[in-house]
């Protein structure tokens, strides 16, 4: 009878309630009048004391994008080495799936536990900002690595390489391999991965240079950092673009999947592949001739550097202001650049000749 009518009334009421709640908040917020809060505020508060010694017993927590990712396991282990060197307490926590919302809950937990330093790789540049700011307010130093947040949410971002550096080296590698002309495609990770998109944008810029004028980027495919999906996408690329000469896959999952596909297909050696991959994953394909050369920074070094940066922050050696300098154990001295960015260095290029020297 009218049971449903009541429910319908309920639904209407719910809508009305939202309307009221919404309009009660304030009158008509639009994108135009809201004015995006630009993160101009660099945060370097207080003065750095370059001579301060690194404190012992610092509680340093690593919060990767997800805990089940071998890449992050490697870099967190680098961080662990560093923390051991400076006699701190190391901890690695993180969600089992790469989602920003669960990272927020972990950040809250860490700040609740009174961590001195939180080293994190952001699943979303904005979503975890609020939580990071709260943690910062509670006294924790925030270092991001691999994937950054908005600059105002952290003190230091440890960048594996500059985005420009990646774009340059990737384009250069593929150009060398395909002989400077032909169609190429990019196989990326997820479509909203911050760093991937930044690199891809820069690669497109790079390709506009005259020396690459004969190279045509035909498409960007997304393998979602999922092995099977990347595999299928590679398949799709080769079928859709018969004239494809090369693929750049600036993600470790993607490049390995693509290499495996190529090595088992008729395109092996004919379609060139380069990208960012780990030597362990790629060793086989470099040796069997599928891949000539690829690049990567050392993820362990990345974590190592991030841990040192965090310790330096917590000890007052640096504040994250441009020009601050600190020493990161075996890696030597680093300087903080603009927006609190510390760059690990140019990527290493791996090929048949040097790959056996690396184990990670």
């Amino acid at each position, binding site marked *: 009878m009218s049971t449903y009518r009541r429910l319908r009334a309920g639904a209407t009421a719910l809508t009305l309630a939202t309307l009221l709640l919404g309009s009660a908040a304030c009158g008509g917020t639009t994108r135009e009048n809201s004015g995006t809060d630009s993160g101009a505020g660099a945060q370097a508060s207080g003065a750095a004391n370059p001579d301060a010694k690194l404190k012992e017993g610092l509680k340093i927590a690593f919060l990767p994008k997800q*805990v*089940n*990712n*071998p890449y*992050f*396991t490697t870099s967190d282990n680098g961080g662990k080495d560093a923390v051991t060197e400076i006699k701190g307490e190391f901890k690695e926590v993180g969600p*089992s*799936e790469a989602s920003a919302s669960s990272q927020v809950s972990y950040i809250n937990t860490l700040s609740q536990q009174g961590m001195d330093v939180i080293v994190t790789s952001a699943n979303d540049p904005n979503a975890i900002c609020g939580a990071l700011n709260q943690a910062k307010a509670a006294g924790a130093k925030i270092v991001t690595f691999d994937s950054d947040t908005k600059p105002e949410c952290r003190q230091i971002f440890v960048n594996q390489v500059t985005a420009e550096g990646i774009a340059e080296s990737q384009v250069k590698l593929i150009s060398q391999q395909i002989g400077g002309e032909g169609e190429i495609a990019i196989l990326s990770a997820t*479509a909203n991965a911050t760093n991937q998109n930044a690199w891809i944008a820069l690669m497109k810029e790079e390709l506009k240079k005259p020396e690459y004028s004969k190279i045509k980027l035909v*498409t960007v*495919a*997304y393998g979602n950092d*999922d*092995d*099977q999906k990347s*595999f*299928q*996408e590679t*398949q*799709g*690329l*080769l*079928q*859709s673009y*018969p004239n494809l000469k090369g693929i750049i896959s600036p993600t470790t*999952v993607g490049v*390995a*999947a693509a290499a*495996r596909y190529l090595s*088992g*297909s*008729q*395109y092996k050696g004919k379609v060139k592949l380069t990208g960012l991959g780990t030597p*362990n*994953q790629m*060793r*086989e394909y470099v040796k069997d001739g599928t891949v000539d050369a690829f690049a990567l920074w050392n993820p362990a070094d990345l974590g190592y550097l991030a841990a040192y940066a965090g310790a330096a922050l917590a000890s007052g050696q640096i504040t994250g202001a441009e020009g601050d300098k600190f020493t990161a154990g075996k890696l030597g001295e680093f300087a903080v650049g603009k927006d609190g960015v510390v760059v690990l260095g140019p990527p290493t290029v791996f090929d048949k000749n040097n790959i056996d020297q690396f184990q990670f």
Partner: protein
Amino acid sequence: MSLTDTGASVQAADNPPPGPGRARRGLTERLLAVRELSLLIALAALILVTTLRNDRFLSGQSIKDLLLGCAILVILAVGQTLVIVTRNVDLSVGSILGLVAFATGELFLAAPGTPWPLALLLGVALGAVCGVVNGGLIAVAKVPALVITLGTLYAFRGVDYYWAAGRQINAADMPRSFLRLGNQTVLGVPVLFLVALIVVAAVGFYLRSYRSGRELYAIGSEPAAARLSGIPVGRRVFAVFVANGALAGLAGVLYAARFGTLDAAAGTGLELQVVAAAVVGGVAIFGGSGSAYGAALGAVLLTTIGSSLAVLRIDPFWQQAVVGALILAAIGLDRLLALRMAARLRGRSAHGA
């Protein structure tokens, strides 16, 4: 829904003689065949359209990729058919696959010399053990399979994560003979696909022609009646979950062979595709009807859609939406057919009077 089915019954003596009856023999089977045929037509149409847009889609390499790509899903869908036919569902297959795949890698790490047939057997056994957990909980606790397997979906994946602890196993860690299994072809047909074919044929044949196979349909069709007719319902359902676990284990080993790179996330979310494949293939989600062949065709269709979306350069974001829409379309279509059939049968009953 039986509200109207009791309508106008007939005095049996006045039923039409069996002459015309012969013509309508095997209505159910014919309907199933219709379903399989329409799947084939849909598949053909899809391939045709994609090939028209890009003639490489039908090249030898591409067909090989397609067959290779669908093999694992086919095996899982066939296993799921066994379960769904009994009016149950197993949502934990993706997690079982992931667990077994990683375990296989671990096995090769720990004992590099393991011959691959042994690894295969061990993988199947591990899958079966997971199935025992599912089936045991369902049979002992008398709780719907949906909830239990939702729970074990978490639990198996958790065990997998815990075990892997963020490590990855690479192709280099596994013996070449094993990896070849994943890529090798016999007369141009990938070995993986042949394995899947054997599974489909075996399960399909079993379901159609064996007493215990038919009993599975009986259980799904009317569990209470099945019990009263002396069918060991609990044991059969348990066995079905074990069998499905074993098939998921097989799929896990093949996954390891095919992809080479393994971490704990292998097969995450696969259960949706598996259920979708079975449902699209005409396996009624409320049990009692459907065939392994249909489910296998459903899996092939889904994989082909995935590939052709990639080939047609349709935004990959659409892919998941297409899977969802297909599930809805498939169950909607089934409903329509069932209503049609009920109407026809009722009509026939009435005419007989």
